[in-house]
């Protein structure tokens, strides 16, 4: 089990080998999002080969209404 912080909330996961699996678990894989791990942007093309590690701080953002 690993502990992560996702969008400021702490989270325990039983399995998430990589970022793509984390997005699948969060049911975000079919949404257009951008992701940072520890303040570093992870390009979409690298999601499935980027490991998620104990203690990682992850930001997942999307577009919303704004002026």
């Amino acid at each position, binding site marked *: 089990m690993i502990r992560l912080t*996702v*969008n*400021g*909330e702490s*989270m325990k996961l039983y399995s998430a080998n990589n970022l793509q699996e984390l997005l699948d678990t*969060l*049911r*975000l894989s079919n*949404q*257009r*999002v*951008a*992701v*940072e791990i520890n*303040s570093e*942007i992870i*390009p*979409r093309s690298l999601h499935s080969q980027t490991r998620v590690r104990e203690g990682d701080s992850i*930001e*997942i*953002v*999307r*577009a*919303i*209404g*704004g*002026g």
Partner: protein
Amino acid sequence: MTQDIALNDPLVVAGRSFNSRLMIGTGKYKDMEETRLAIEASGADIVTVALRRTNIGQNPGEPNLLDVVPPEKYTILPNTAFCYTAEEAVRTCRLARELLDGHDLVKLEVLGDDKTLYPNVTETLAAAETLINDGFKVMVYTSDDPLIAKRLEEMGCVAVMPLGAPIGSGLGIRNPHNIKLILENANVPIIVDAGVGTPSDATLAMELGCEGVLMNSAVAHASNPVLMAQAMRKAVECGREGYLAGRMPRKAYASASSPIEGVIGS
């Protein structure tokens, strides 16, 4: 019906041409459907969006803004609203570029104060420099200070967007003289961003010679946003045509429109 004179007069920002000179925000609408209808009625090509954290664990199926304003149809202009430092603004723009598959046109706004939402100009300058060096095309929200507007242009911003009045205030163009001063020296599009409340405000901005108007609240907070979006489209076109047509000179005294010769009984 009368046919309009066709104008080949696109708005050109960073080498890209846009038919509409009205740019519109996607915030504050009742729902996604109203957002979609208002943006359609506005005729806008450039549509602003904000970036926020996704909701984790709730409503994963909720409608996505980019389904309503698809990037294939509109030029999405991500903003940096509610960034108070250059660092936050740069981070937001980089995330936006990733979100939008390398899209490099951004609206930079670095705010200084919650109550007025006035731009923090020193942080704005710092953020603009970093973003331009990083390859972004920066459309920058700023105060109506002509010197700062010029400085932002010289740094390489692709459009300078002075406020007409505070964001969301609907107070109109409070200092048209400053907007004129900015326009006199400008070599990039000057776009009034923020402050517009009515169609006549938008028309005034365009009559002054602005290249465009960006608004959100004036449409979203109208009683009928879709109708207001349509009115704003016409207002911007109307102001642009009036500007291109060139106004008559002002005179201190009257000048009759009808000839004086042949007045009956003279």
